[in-house]
């Protein structure tokens, strides 16, 4: 049963990645990204990491992809034609990316990765909550500030772009 789900998720992720790699239409790539992100959310569920799965669906599949789509629709060169992306240095790019991918796969396969057996942990989200408020208090407050800077920056640039 679980292997069927795994294969299903793998297909979902790979289909998304495949479309992103080979389409030249940026909007299609954004929707395909959504598929990939949902597949990864499924993987998180399989490894019992429920919070991450929810984050993946809400933030990435729900938010980032919409933002990407808006970004594409905002671009200037859109009037009357599709947004197509070009590609340069094709062969060097292919060789480097395949090389890096193969190298990392090999490394991870031979390395003693710290693995823990996947167990259902009922208190997982509560534990994350406690550690946010105690161990990672600086990170917790810093995240809010980073988000504030991103918001103010984007709004300010957009306002000045709109005024001109």
């Amino acid at each position: 049963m679980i292997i069927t789900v795994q294969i299903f998720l793998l297909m979902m992720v790979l289909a998304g990645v495949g479309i992103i790699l080979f389409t030249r239409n940026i909007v299609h790539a954004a929707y395909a990204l959504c598929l990939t992100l949902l597949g990864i959310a499924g993987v998180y569920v399989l490894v019992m990491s429920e919070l991450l799965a929810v984050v993946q669906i809400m933030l990435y599949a729900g938010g980032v992809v919409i933002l990407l789509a808006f970004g594409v629709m905002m671009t200037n060169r859109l009037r009357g034609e599709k947004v197509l992306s070009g590609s340069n240095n094709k062969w060097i790019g292919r060789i480097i990316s395949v090389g890096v991918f193969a190298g990392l796969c090999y490394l991870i396969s031979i390395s003693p990765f710290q693995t823990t057996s996947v167990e259902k942990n009922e208190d997982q989200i509560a534990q994350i909550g406690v550690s946010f408020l105690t161990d990672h208090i600086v990170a917790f407050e810093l995240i809010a500030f980073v988000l504030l800077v991103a918001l103010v920056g984007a709004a300010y640039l957009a306002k000045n772009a709109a005024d001109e």
Partner: protein
Amino acid sequence: MNLIDQLNGILADLQGVWAESALMLGAIAVLVLGLARSGRAIKALFLIVLIFACYLNLTNGLRGDILSGSLFLSVHTSTFGILFLITASFLLLFKRGDKHSTEFYFFILSMLTGSLLMMKANSLLIIYLSIELVSFSSYILTNFSFKKKGFEASIKYLLFGAICSAIMLFGLGIIYGSTSTFLVSEWNSETFSALLPQVGFILLLVGIFFKISIAPAHLWVPATYQEAPADATAFMSIVPKLAALVLLKRIFEGQIFTSNHWIYSLVLGLGILTIVAGTLGAFRQSNARRMISFGAIAHSGFLLPLTLIQSTTASESLWYYSVVYAIMNMVTFYLLDVHERNGIVEIDDYKQTSRSVWIGAIFSLILVSLVGLPPLAGFTAKLFLFTTLWEGYSLLENSQMLWYLIVAVIATVGSLFFYLRIPRAIFLSQSTDNQSINLNLSTKILATLFCIVLLLLFFAPQLVMEAQQLLNNVHE
């Protein structure tokens, strides 16, 4: 651990982050005040925030791991913190119109917060978040001229930075996956014995090197430094770079690699590459600011080995070099800004300025200090650097240090030829259309004062070391 003890521990440790909290609150206050006022009021608030943060930083007596290991405080973090805050206060000397002032000081304060946290970071989470905070602010400040070229530089910087940050995040993931700890202080010589964590470490270095502008992650520097407003450039070329260097020093202090480890050699090799790239790149520039930015890249290369050698000499020379570098870069960009306001942008344009002898002489002296010639503090900084490298060579028996030393000396001599193109344009040109540029008296006095400080630090370098001791012990 007992929850109540942990909470009380956090309350006791909060003292260590008061300065950052003050800066964060100050940034928000600037933003809120900016809705009602602009100009003077904002600048005054900015200065008050800096002074207050300085006070909090000085009175903080905590050292070591705090807040469950999120941050690590040391002599360096407290003294460099003061250096950054003072550097930020010098930004008020630059001429800045009211139009973009609120957001400008907001982003400067947020960059400052990020830099202070970056050099104190002990947890991988904080490393990533603080580098992102600094980067976000830098991307936006690059575009603060709101011209097409500034936008282009900003978007290039953003794309380059996004890729570096993604690579670093992947590296952090690999390190966490193979060590299952977030804390840098828990690393030891065993941590990186396998190949996978070593690769993760290299990927982490990509993100840090991007901030220090070590080759090949230096490509964003020339366009960014050229197009950003001069005050933002001065700040960006000093504070995030030094903060990342302190972080790097802290990481290597853990003795995680022996001096003949391949990562060690790789970092040294990249440092040499940086010096070569910066020096060679500067020769071909016709724009004054672009030339200085390549010089700044070379300076990153000079500073890098000081983080790798663990000795008192290395720490002292890092501190001395940083202080002098901060002063030199601040005044260089200040003078570049003054000239640019008079329409003098390219190196050849400086031929027109031969009538303003006084400021020309001061500018030449500053550039001589950037080269590293006596009788200015830049020379002493280089001298300390060469001593440290020689010590590193004889102590660690690492022949690469010797190569580093040789390249550094050659690059120092080479830099003479490009830095002195501006003085040559000012004094040795036969240009006919001389026009005296209008500089007010305060500019001249200010530049002269900086120059005197650089002279003073040459004759009494121990002042800088004593200042470090003093700043570190104020809280007692």
